[in-house]
Structure formats: structure tokens, C-alpha cells
């Protein structure tokens, strides 16, 4: 869908994914690396000296190298920026300015370029120069603080995420500017701050104080003395973790015993399954979880009885495998889910059915390795797909010079 667009990609690991998304959508994405290779080639996870981060998120791009200390080499980059539809950078601002590859310099030569910036805090502002890591951004943007496991300090996701959100947003921002260019006839600057990008990854918790909610941690069990609000979501978003994790025969299961009118029916389905296999008796087996909150408040049900119900679930799930739980969740409409690790994903029949994987060559691998290859499925025009392996340093220096700059 984007085959007509040329993208000059001046990113390191912070912005690497943005160009991958545009390449999957058909754009000609040229990844620029300094002579020694991008720092993204050292981003974890590493297998020996192979960065799987680089190999997956630079997949399908073409690669050119540049000696950033050499003026003629940098001039070549400026020439490429001069004919690009989109320039993306996550290099430090001082560096792109020193190289004459900043937005003002690029627009002076190429006013139609969409200049897209990915950074921790944004192009300008009081923290624009801050030293940054994924953890710093995760703390600054809001998702870290409310994520507590009991009394322990807040937890991040063990796989860095902040810049992936920002790089995805940058791809959307760049395409908004491409659509605008059709109307206004010129490019513009798209400035993405990872800190601002991840506010939306808090389920609006970042807005709580602004709208005057001083207790966004919900009372989790109705009828307890200190609350009044109940978590009636289907996801159990406001329910403590220990009440949503259950051991099964070969791993763990995520299950929120949802109650209330919107999502209580799912728990009815769960208890119907347990009762069929003799795992729970009356009266619990015939509770209507849609009205359990009301009955807890009125005192018709006690919290001891609720604990009995939980104990029945616990004993039942210990005898089930992850695959059995998933199969039952589909067949019986349960909000009950196996907690998958990377090996479960690789073996998923569903993902294979949807042709989700694309095999690419990786350095040092005897056989091609499956990577996520389709972030969306499309009918009509050709949809996104991984276009091949990541480039080697300078692999496409000559062909890009020829195709983009007309050099022989």
C-alpha cells in the first residue's frame, strides 16, 4: 500500500520498529548505519553476537552505511534525505544538527519531506536532554507507578516496551503527515515522545487525579467495609494479581472470577464446566454470578462461601493442562486463559492457520527462523508482511545510490 514511498531511516534501537512497520506496508525503507554498525545491533536479546532485536525490527529494510566523520559520506546522506518522502530519526538531536540532517536543514532542501522524530521526551522541553532508558521512560510516562505486586516496588515488563509504542505511534504520525501532504502540498515535522506515547498504556490511570478520583484502586470484593465499588469489568483490571493467577497441570492460568451484570455470565459458564466434572456441588454450582455482588452486599452470600468457590476452582484447574483450558475457554465461552510462553506461541495452531509467521534467514542459523510477519491481515490491497531479513552493514550502498540518486 506504500510502495510509492521512500523512507530514509536514521534510527537506532529506539526507533527501529517504525521503519519496519512502513517496510511491511510496502515502503522502500533504507536503514542508515554508521560504519561500525548500528548500536541497535547490540540491543538484547542477544544470541552470541546476534541481536534478535535488530534482526526482527530491521527486517525487510535495505541498508546503507555512512562514515559520519567524513563530509562527503554525510553529504550523501543529505542527498538521500533530499529525495526521501519520509525521514525518521531517533539519533540524538545534537548529532542530527551537527550532521545537517535536522528538520530545518532537510526541509530547506526537501520541503515535501515528512520528518519524523522518535525520542524519550520529545524534540524540545525541559527534559529533552535527559539520559534515557526504557525504564526511565516507563517511569516518566505513567505505566510503572501503579503496577505493584503487593508491597514490593512497582514493576516494569521484563521485555523493554516504551520505544515500541513510540515507534508505532511515529509510523502513524508519519502517515498522517503523508495524507496531509496530499492536501497542503508539503511535508512537516512529526515529533513523538515515548513518555507521552505510553500514557494510554495505563487504562487512563494517569487521568485519575485530574478528574478528581482519589481512589482509582477499586474495592475488589463487594461488601467489604472500605469500599463500595466493584470491579465489574470482564478483564479484572482492578483486581489484585494473586486472585487472578491459578496453577494448572503444566503451567499457569489467568482467570478473573468476573461478577456483576456485564461479565458474570462467563463465571456461570466456568462453574457449569466444573460441576459437570463433579468438581463443585450445591449450592455454589448454581450461583448466578451476575447477581453475586448484590448478594454479597446484602449478606445473602458470605465471603467464606466465596472462598469455598475459589477453592473449588483451584482444585479443578490443577488437573487441567494449558491446552485443555484454552479449548474449554473457546467452546464454553470462559474468560479463562492459559499463560503462554514463547514455546507455546511457536507451536500455536491458530497462528499457523493465520499464516502469522514469515521465515527469515538469521546470521549463524542453520535454517530460516520464523518471526512475526503479519501485524494485520488485509483483503483488497496487499497487506503488511515481513519483506525479508535485516540488512548487513552497507549491503545496499550501491543499489540505493543508483536508484535514489541516479548514480551509476
Amino acid at each position: 500500500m506504500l510502495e510509492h514511498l521512500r523512507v530514509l531511516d536514521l534510527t537506532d534501537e529506539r526507533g527501529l520498529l517504525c521503519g519496519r512497520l512502513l517496510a511491511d506496508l510496502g515502503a522502500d525503507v533504507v536503514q542508515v548505519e554508521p560504519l561500525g554498525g548500528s548500536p541497535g545491533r547490540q540491543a538484547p536479546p542477544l544470541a552470541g553476537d546476534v541481536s534478535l532485536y535488530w534482526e526482527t525490527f530491521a527486517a525487510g529494510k535495505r541498508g546503507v552505511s555512512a562514515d559520519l566523520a567524513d563530509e562527503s559520506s554525510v553529504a550523501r546522506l543529505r542527498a538521500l534525505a533530499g529525495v526521501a518522502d519520509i525521514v525518521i530519526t531517533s539519533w540524538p538531536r545534537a548529532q542530527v544538527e551537527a550532521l545537517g540532517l535536522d528538520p530545518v536543514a532537510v526541509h530547506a532542501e526537501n520541503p515535501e519531506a515528512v520528518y519524523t522524530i522518535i525520542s524519550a521526551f520529545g524534540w524540545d522541553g525541559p527534559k529533552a536532554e535527559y539520559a534515557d532508558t526504557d525504564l526511565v521512560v516507563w517511569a516518566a510516562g505513567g505505566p510503572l507507578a501503579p503496577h505493584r505486586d503487593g508491597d514490593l516496588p512497582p514493576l516494569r515488563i521484563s521485555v523493554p516496551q516504551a520505544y515500541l509504542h513510540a515507534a508505532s505511534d511515529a509510523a502513524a504520525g508519519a502517515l498522517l503527515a503523508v495524507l496531509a501532504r496530499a492536501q497542503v502540498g508539503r511535508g512537516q515535522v512529526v515529533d513523538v515522545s515515548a513518555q507521552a506515547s505510553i500514557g494510554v498504556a495505563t487504562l487512563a490511570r494517569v487521568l485519575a487525579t485530574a478528574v478528581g478520583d482519589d481512589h482509582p484502586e477499586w474495592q475488589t470484593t463487594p461488601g467489604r467495609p472500605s469500599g463500595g465499588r466493584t470491579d465489574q469489568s470482564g478483564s479484572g483490571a482492578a483486581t489484585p494479581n494473586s486472585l487472578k493467577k491459578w496453577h494448572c497441570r503444566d503451567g499457569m492460568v489467568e482467570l478473573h472470577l468476573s461478577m456483576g451484570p456485564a461479565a458474570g455470565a462467563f463465571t456461570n459458564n466456568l462453574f457449569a464446566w466444573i460441576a459437570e466434572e463433579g468438581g463443585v456441588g450445591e449450592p455454589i454450582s448454581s450461583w448466578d454470578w451476575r447477581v453475586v455482588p448484590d448478594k454479597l452486599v446484602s449478606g445473602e452470600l458470605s465471603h467464606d462461601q466465596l472462598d469455598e468457590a475459589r477453592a473449588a476452582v483451584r482444585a479443578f484447574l490443577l488437573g487441567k493442562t494449558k491446552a485443555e483450558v484454552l479449548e474449554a475457554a473457546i467452546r464454553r465461552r470462559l474468560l479463562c486463559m492459559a499463560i503462554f510462553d514463547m514455546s507455546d506461541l511457536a507451536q500455536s495452531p491458530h497462528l499457523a492457520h493465520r499464516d502469522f509467521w514469515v521465515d527469515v534467514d538469521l546470521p549463524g542459523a542453520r535454517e530460516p527462523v520464523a518471526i512475526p510477519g503479519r501485524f494485520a491481515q488485509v483483503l483488497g490491497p496487499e497487506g503488511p508482511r515481513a519483506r525479508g531479513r535485516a540488512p548487513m552493514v552497507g549491503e545496499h550502498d550501491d543499489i540505493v545510490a543508483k536508484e535514489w540518486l541516479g548514480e551509476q
Partner: protein
Amino acid sequence: MNLTNASSAEPRVDALAGLKVLDLSWVVAGPLVGRALADFGAEVVRIESSVRVETARLMQPFHGGRQDKEGSALFGNCNAGKLGLTLDLKSAEGQQVVRDLVGWADVVVESFSPGQLRKWGLDYETLRADKPDLVMLSTSIAGQDGPWSKLAGFGNVGSSLSGFQHLVGYQDRLPMGTFGPYTDYVGPRLALVTLLAALENRRRTGEGAYIDVAQVEAGIFFLSPQVAHYGFDGTIAERHGNRDAQAAPHGVFPARSVEGAERFVVISVRDRAEWQALARAIGREDLAERDDLATADGRRAMEDELEQVISAWTAERSATAVEEALQLLGVPAHAAVTSDDYPHEPQLAHRGHLVELPHPTHGRTFVEGPRYRLSETPGAPRRAAPALGQDNEVVLRDLLGYDEARIDALREGGILR
């Protein structure tokens, strides 16, 4: 530096001026897509049922802390700038209104269980017969086909099946999972990119498109390196608290509490220079000079002890004071920003990220601004999210051209509920 690329002070246009969007989605993942389109000038009509109230309206946080279907800041954040129409979609009359709105729209966004729209004759195959350039986005947990497509679910199901639940927590404790339904935060970003590419393609070729985004697949996409690592040599990625594969020390440390509330500050040390700056800042010249702590591996070997030393120092200071002191030295550090901090956080305030909007019930409300600052065609939420049924008249009369008698009949027939 001025980022503008304008040659003169001409009137600004919107990036998506003239684009018409019918939003049939609900909760978070679908509505966030329409929200982004509305910010950049699209006219977005959001359909809801006033009988089966949409889940996001029942979810925290709430204005004034009171659970009320017109008070959810989550709903407000996902739906600002849209027109709101309430409709009984199970009725033939309601479905006809939807068909008329499809005729009006360029884009349809929906998040029903796969197969539901087909039962109503509102699926893509049917709709495109009359409107071949329609761009339609379906967002669901596992996609429109395949063995998992019938999964009921919210984003927490997506985060379990995509591998995220396994990847948050301490090694010696239960997996903690993500904060909220994580794939709800990933899916709409990848959906929006694809939708905008389809619009660019339609602009150039006149061709429509149908886009099927699965939250599970979007989540796995963000774990591409980890899945590839498994394929490469069988490594299964594990959770490791707040520790990091490269930086050490790397953690979340207690800071001085504020009005009785616990506060925290993060610090990550990427190299020896940063380690020496940190060690000196906390008054431990001896640690700064130790050769065995010169490398990340060396520091990792005694990370427990180093964390204790750092904690003793941070605990006596405010999170912001730690952040500022260490950042002055070039050491990555930041306060763990809470919702109390959020409205005043200096960098977000500089960007105008929190946007105040007038609100019919609450006087004013707050939503997040767009996540991409465009210099020439900036986006912004145009108005607060609609109250239930707020724009029924406007949509039916002005957008669809229904006359009063027809609108009255719908109202009296109980269709506009």
C-alpha cells in the same frame, strides 16, 4: 528551534479533513483508533447501546471518584471528539440506520465478536457490494478466522496468549502480568498504521480495504525478538523483576513518601562512567573506584548489595530530587510518575499533553492529547466524549438527512436506546 515548515501564515487544514468514520467498536482497542482519527479532523460517529452500557463507561477512573456511566475518564479518553448515537443494533430499524451511516462513511471500525456482523448483514462482503471503496477495520482478540477466533475476551486474554503475562514479575513469585489489558494498548497502534496506509492507498487508487487486526498477534509482534530467540536456539524469555539484560544496577527504588503515599524513583546504569557518577553522588567513592564493579557483569554479581546501598540513599530524598541530581550527572533516572504528578509533570506540560475540555455534566474534563505532534496539521481533541445519545438528532437529521417524522418513529419505536 522552530519546527514549522510553513512558508506563510496561511489557514491550517486538518490532516484528515473530510474523512467520515463510523465507529461501531467498544471498550478500548477499537475506540482509540477512532479517537486518533477525530483528533486530526475526521468526523467520527460512535454508535452505542444505552441499554447494554458499554464496559468502558463502567470503568475507573471516574469524575469525583463516583462510579457513573457519564463519569468515566477512560471512556472520555477513548472517545473525545466523536459524535454519539445510541441505537438498538438488534432491531431491523437500527441496522438500517447503520447501513445508511455506512453509505455516509469512508471508514468503518468495529470490534464485535467475529461473525456477529454477518448475522446482521453488516459484514464487509455485504457492505462493499454497495461501496467498493469502503475501508473497514475489524479489531478482535484473536482475529476473524482460525481456531481461536471464537474466543471471548478482553485484553487480559490477549496479554496471556501473546506471552506478556509470563514476562512481568519477580522470578521467584507468581507471574504478575501487565497493568491492565496490555494488548488493548498495542493493537490500536498497529491497527491505526494499517488503516492510514489503506487510506493513502485509497487516495491514490480508489481501492477500498478490509483490515483484520488481532490483539494477540499485535502483542506477539511487540515480542518479535523474544519469539525469534526461541526459534533461533530454543531460549524461552523469562521475567526478572526490574533487572535488565544490559544495565546494572537497574531498578525501582523507594523515595521519600509524599503525604503518606509511597513514592519511587528508577535508576539505570549503562556503563562505568555512569556507575562512578552514581557511586560518588551517593557518597561511596570507594565503590566508584573498585575494579570489580567496572563492568556490568561485576556490578550484577553484587546487585542485591548495591541496590540496598542505593535504596538507603534514595529513601531519604524526594523522587524528583533524586531524578534531578542524577540527571545532572548524566545518569538515567526518573521519578515513577503517579496520577497525582501527571497533571504537573514539566515535560508533559511543556508538550500540552493533558488537554482540558468543557464537559456538560462535570464542567470540565481532561483527556490525553495526540501522541504525535504534527507541526503543520496538529491534532487535538475537539470536544469531550459524547454523553449517551447526545448527538442522535444531529446524526440522523444533519448527516443522514432523515426528516422529523422518521426520527420520531425511531424514537417512539425504542430504536434510539
